[in-house]
């Protein structure tokens, strides 16, 4: 018989962290409000990351004012591939990836052709605050498109995957690959049908996956089992994620990473309110890990030491 509900006791035994407790204990408890703009404003994040030498996609330009929208082609001249995104967008809203260009016709990742006019409209919408929290005016960032490392890009048939690492007090606590699917229209957003795949912190091997809150074992588009996936540059990815804590000092932080073919792991975005699906993807509750990391006391180690300690700590857990 299909079970519609589990019990609070079962979840508690598994150490599943849920929304209310995440907000009260971890977001309110470890993320200082004044530091939110560092992650909510991606332009700010990028500046901080560049200053600290954290690898991140190159910034091509910024559109701040509406009059600049008409002259968008000036900023784009010489670039055939780029990403336009709102600086203060939330949940992946308003991100437009252009993978090719024929004069003033632009190609989206899924092959759709866009006129310059619709590109300008998209930019104008961003400036008007359409995608930002609370509709506040925003600016549009144009950044270089990432040339995904082959193994990494091959994880998805549509769009590109990314790696979400949950970093607690600077220590990686859990990791998940987010793989876009046909169902998610190429977006790495779990709400829209992207698959979340748990990755073992100790060795970078993937385990099971989750799509629409349901556990799955195989890639819905390729039919290949998830446990064949393992991450290259695993150490480097985790260290990069941990260093994001050093620049933001946000105790409960979601770090989104991708792997570029030439430049290796890159920080794509930071999130001060990371979601809870990472637990389903890993088949493992967050609370026991967070409690262990809490017990470590003041954070004094550097990122590399933190990563090796966390990998040791959560080996085989």
């Amino acid at each position, binding site marked *: 018989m299909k*079970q*519609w*509900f*589990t*019990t*609070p006791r*079962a*979840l508690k*035994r*598994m150490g*599943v962290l*849920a*929304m*209310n*407790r995440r907000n*009260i*204990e971890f977001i309110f408890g470890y993320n200082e409000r004044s530091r939110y703009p560092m992650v909510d404003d991606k332009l700010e994040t990028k500046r901080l990351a560049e200053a600290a030498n954290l690898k991140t996609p190159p910034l091509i330009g910024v559109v701040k004012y*509406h009059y600049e929208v008409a002259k968008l082609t000036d900023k784009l001249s010489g670039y055939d591939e780029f990403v336009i995104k709102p600086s203060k967008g939330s*949940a992946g*809203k*308003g991100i437009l990836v252009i993978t090719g260009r024929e004069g003033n016709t632009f190609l989206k990742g899924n092959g759709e052709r866009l006129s310059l*006019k*619709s590109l*300008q*409209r998209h930019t*104008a*919408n961003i400036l*008007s*605050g*359409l*995608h930002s929290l609370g*509709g506040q005016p925003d600016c549009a960032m144009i950044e270089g498109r990432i040339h995904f490392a082959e193994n990494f890009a091959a994880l998805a048939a549509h769009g590109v995957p990314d790696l979400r690492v949950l970093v607690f007090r600077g220590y990686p606590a859990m990791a998940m690959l987010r793989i876009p699917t046909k169902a998610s*229209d190429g977006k790495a*957003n779990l*709400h*829209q*049908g992207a698959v979340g795949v748990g990755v073992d912190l100790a060795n970078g091997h993937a385990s099971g996956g*989750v799509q629409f*809150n*349901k*556990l799955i074992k195989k890639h819905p588009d390729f039919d290949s089992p998830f446990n064949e996936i393992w991450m290259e540059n695993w150490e480097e990815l985790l260290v990069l994620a941990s260093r994001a804590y050093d620049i933001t000092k946000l105790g409960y932080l979601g770090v989104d990473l991708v792997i570029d073919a030439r430049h290796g792991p890159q920080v794509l975005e930071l999130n001060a309110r990371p979601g809870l699906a990472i*637990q*389903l993807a890993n*088949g493992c*509750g967050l609370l026991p890990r967070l409690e262990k990391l809490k017990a470590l006391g003041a954070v004094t180690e550097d990122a590399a030491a933190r990563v090796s300690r966390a990998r040791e700590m959560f080996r085989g857990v």
Partner: protein
Amino acid sequence: MKYSAFRIFVGLLFFAGIGLTLYKNQVLGFPLRPGEQTEVWEIEARIDFEAMGEAVRLSFALPEDPLNFELLEEVYVSGPFGLEVERGDLRRANWSIQAAEGPVTLFYRASAYRETAGARGSSRRDTLPVLDAPEAPPPPFLTDFDRTAAEAVRDDLLAQSSDSGTFAALLFQALRDPPENSNYAALLGTRASARELAEVARDMLALQEIPHRLIRGLVLEQDQRRGSFKFLIEVFDGDRWEVIDPETGETGLPPDFFVWQRGGRSNLDLEGGRGSEVSFSFIQTNLPTAMLARNGFGRESDPILDFSLYALPIGEQGVFKTLLLIPIGALALVFIRNVIGVSTSGTFMPILIAIAFQETNVLPGLVLFIVVVGVGLLIRSWLSRLNLLLVPRISAVVVVVILLMAALSIASHKLGLERGLTVTFFPTIILAWTIERLSILWEEHGQREALKLGFGSLLVAVVAHFFMDAAMVKYLTFAFPELLLSVLALILMIGQYSGYRLLELHRFRGFPKAE
């Protein structure tokens, strides 16, 4: 704030709300239920007399306050007469005029109610307030003939009685049912009316020097016109006063007996007139207990009442009736979002929709909302191709929404569906933003998310509406606004709830079970 301090604070808030409510209920008599009624009697005394063309002075005993009833308000109809109300142990209305001639009618009207259990914590008062130590009555004025008969009867009664209590009991029995004895016949003579029997009884009691009082009052049994006093006699039997009905011999106050005057002087003194007659009419009405309570039951008002919402002008009271429901909707919203886990589009949009449902009712409201938002979404999807900036686009949606509302109103009016006219109660700007949000959600997150949030919001709105629409809730929030402290405490408590949401139990149902 420390968690324990927070809990104490929340607890204090919660019990302050409940406590104030109970105070108002138990002490000030505010009923906890809407529509609770209190029996109120409108009693009118009509005084007729013939003025004789000279100065007239008329003194009329007013009901004492408080006796067994509470007086709400008193009205005097004096015509050309001057009126002075004498306050003191005995209240009297003194009417006077320099000269008057011919028939005169004066009125005194009082509304009175009896306190029911709960009000001021007292039960129905069936007994009268205790009086001070009795004085021996003055000897009666009797003719020699009457005195002889009276003394004979007294001696006869004394022979059978042991103390003043039994003497009085025997006396009243003898007056009702006189023995075959010439003394009794001589004493009573032709006197047979209740009033005359009471006079004889008082003479006899005075003769025996037994303290007693006459009670004048009205039996409030049914609506009556031109009724008259019923006379009771209070006798001091050595220890306490006992009320006796000379007509029936029953002791104690009859049920629904309104005591007008207890002892004291005559009921009506008239100078410069003749043929005076007092008649009473009374009708029973029912007034909401809450209304009586907020007028302080005709007593001096409590400071809590002076600062209640009932002290506001009626128009503002109406505004608060709606405002005070919002916290109830907010509580429902907080519960559904944080304990059950339904997500909504826009935090407070569901409450505003729920308020609109108050006017439209749920089903017509849902239909109207879905029609407006649905058509709005269609038009919005066309607008999104026009490359409009955000503020102009939302403004355009606002215009579209208003046009839709007008079209719906006109169409439903023509079709005779007057319900459709209530579409105007939906907040226009909220509708426009709802359309905008859902449309963006649709474009970027797919129809699944958009429908989920749309229906989540409607669900919360409907649930909040049912909470806010309950007559009990409407009444309680307005009569006891201090309950909002308790609502606030509950909201604060949910704000600290860190357990699982109900829908998370569904979301995480696939979690592998622990060994």
